């Protein structure tokens, strides 16, 4: 048999996308990596110079960097658990049959398509210390005695922003978990019922184990997304009061566009990417194993 000629057609088809991605993503990332080894202040173009690992050493000794790391971890863990809990609950409920399920599902998905800036402003307004509807409700039902400035108190600011992000992101969990629930064959449940398994047993022994692959994928995707999201924090608190809502992406953004210190900002961004690399690697491994089976 003659050796097959290399078919160029598939490569021609992917060329535009690969070319564009190289231009707008891969090259910029290399440039950021380069900047992180430089003294790169935008307003002092003449003073730009190679400084090796100095930015990285500065970061490790920078208390704000460590505060931001701590907040990033709290932020990811908190937001993901809140979204997962609410998203899972909503998915279980919406998986049942009732006459207004279609409308309920459409309405529950609304937060997910809401722009981050709108989400941030709506919640900022609801948290308002003078006319916030959240304060009014809490006082009216006796949970609070006086209006409370949720976003300008350093103890409550971070949690308050996390609730806003939970609102925006929980429908994603609902969508994914609902799809997972629908892929579980109902014969499994029927067989379990014949064997006398109650609702709780069925949930623990059938639903949860069969959902684990999709939960794993969804959680990894969300971790990456939540870790990178900074627009909601930026609009709601700008990182304040003090450093109480600083996360790593926010700190990097502030360093770049308030302090105009691109070198240090690039270093912070790269450190964030390095921390996320573990999660990304896990996700890629998962996708590769799925791709192989196709």
């Amino acid at each position, binding site marked *: 048999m003659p050796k097959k000629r290399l078919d160029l057609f598939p490569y021609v088809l992917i060329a535009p996308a*690969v070319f564009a991605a190289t231009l707008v993503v891969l090259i910029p990332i290399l440039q950021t990596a380069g900047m992180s080894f430089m003294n790169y202040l935008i307003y002092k173009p003449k003073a730009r110079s190679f400084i090796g690992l100095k930015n990285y050493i500065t970061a490790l000794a920078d208390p704000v960097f460590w505060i931001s790391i701590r907040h990033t971890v709290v932020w990811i863990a908190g937001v993901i658990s809140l979204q997962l809990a609410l998203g899972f609950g909503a998915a279980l409920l919406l998986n049942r049959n009732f006459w207004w399920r279609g409308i*309920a599902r459409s309405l529950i998905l609304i937060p997910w398509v809401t722009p981050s800036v709108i989400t941030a402003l709506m919640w900022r307004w609801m948290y308002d210390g003078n006319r916030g509807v959240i304060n009014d409700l809490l006082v009216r039902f006796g949970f609070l005695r006086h209006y409370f400035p949720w976003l300008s108190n350093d103890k409550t600011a971070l949690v308050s922003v996390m609730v806003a992000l939970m609102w925006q992101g929980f429908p994603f969990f609902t969508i994914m978990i609902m799809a997972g629930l629908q892929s579980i064959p109902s014969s499994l449940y029927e067989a379990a019922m014949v064997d006398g398994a109650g609702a709780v047993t069925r949930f623990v022994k059938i639903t949860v184990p069969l959902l684990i692959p999709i939960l794993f994928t969804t959680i990894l995707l969300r971790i990456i997304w939540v870790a990178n999201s*900074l627009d909601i924090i*930026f609009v709601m608190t700008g990182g304040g009061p003090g450093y109480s809502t600083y996360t790593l992406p926010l700190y990097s953004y502030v360093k770049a566009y308030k302090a105009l210190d691109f070198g240090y900002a690039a270093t912070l961004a790269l450190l964030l990417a390095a921390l996320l690399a573990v999660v990304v690697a896990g996700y*890629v491994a998962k996708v590769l194993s799925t791709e192989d089976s196709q």
Partner: protein
Amino acid sequence: MKRRSKLLRNILTLHLPVLLIVLFAVGPYVWTFISSVTPQKEMDMEFRYLPEHATMDNYARLFGNLNFGTNVKDSFIVALGSTILGMTLTLTASYSFSRFNFRFKQFFLIQFLVINMFPIVLLIIPLFVMMKNLGIMDTHFALMIAYSTFTIPFATWMMTGFFRAIPRELDESAQIDGLGRFGTFVRVIVPIALPGVSATGIYIFINSWNEFIYASILTSSAVRTIPVSLQNMVGEYQIAWGLLTAGGVVAAIPILTMFFFIQKTMISGMTAGAVKG
């Protein structure tokens, strides 16, 4: 008796919890809408849930003095341009991934997955420098290019899923009928994939419409999209909540409308890959 207790149980374990979650999901919008039609005078008075004299003043001021119409236009141009650019660049690539086996296919596919996961702060500094050097700062085009950082990977993956769902026999029979390989793609496969194409297109339109960070850095006065314009209205001490909430309502209406039309296709496209895994 038994039927009544079943109904009661259904209300407590199903209808009531669903209602609470729905209220949580739409509550912020309801409150935003109410605030937007409350006259400024009443905003300064005692707290009330419903305005005594509802008014469209905030909307009139928004589109009158504040020229919000131009922001809507900018957002629309940027989102539409990003969608067209993103879809044009990725449609052939997704078809290629769905149909052919070639060397480094996995590598390229994974590349498109991974570039979507880089922190935006990692890209924005060099993109800022790039736009400056190209002299296209503060233009619609700058944002379309910046947005391709997320439209390309996303559209590639979603469209690959939609193309995969189309049986390969269709390609073969089209070629037996005399169509070339590219002709098969353009005349047979793309028309069949149209629901998927529009769902993917609308998804990236929504994401471009919503984007804030790139827009806040790469544009300033000549181009100002809705999110940037709203953020700029937030003053240092006094915030005009009536105007802001009206702006929020205006910004949300187009995307919520689009989303309702393509919900089903979009969700099936997004979940297809994840469920199989």
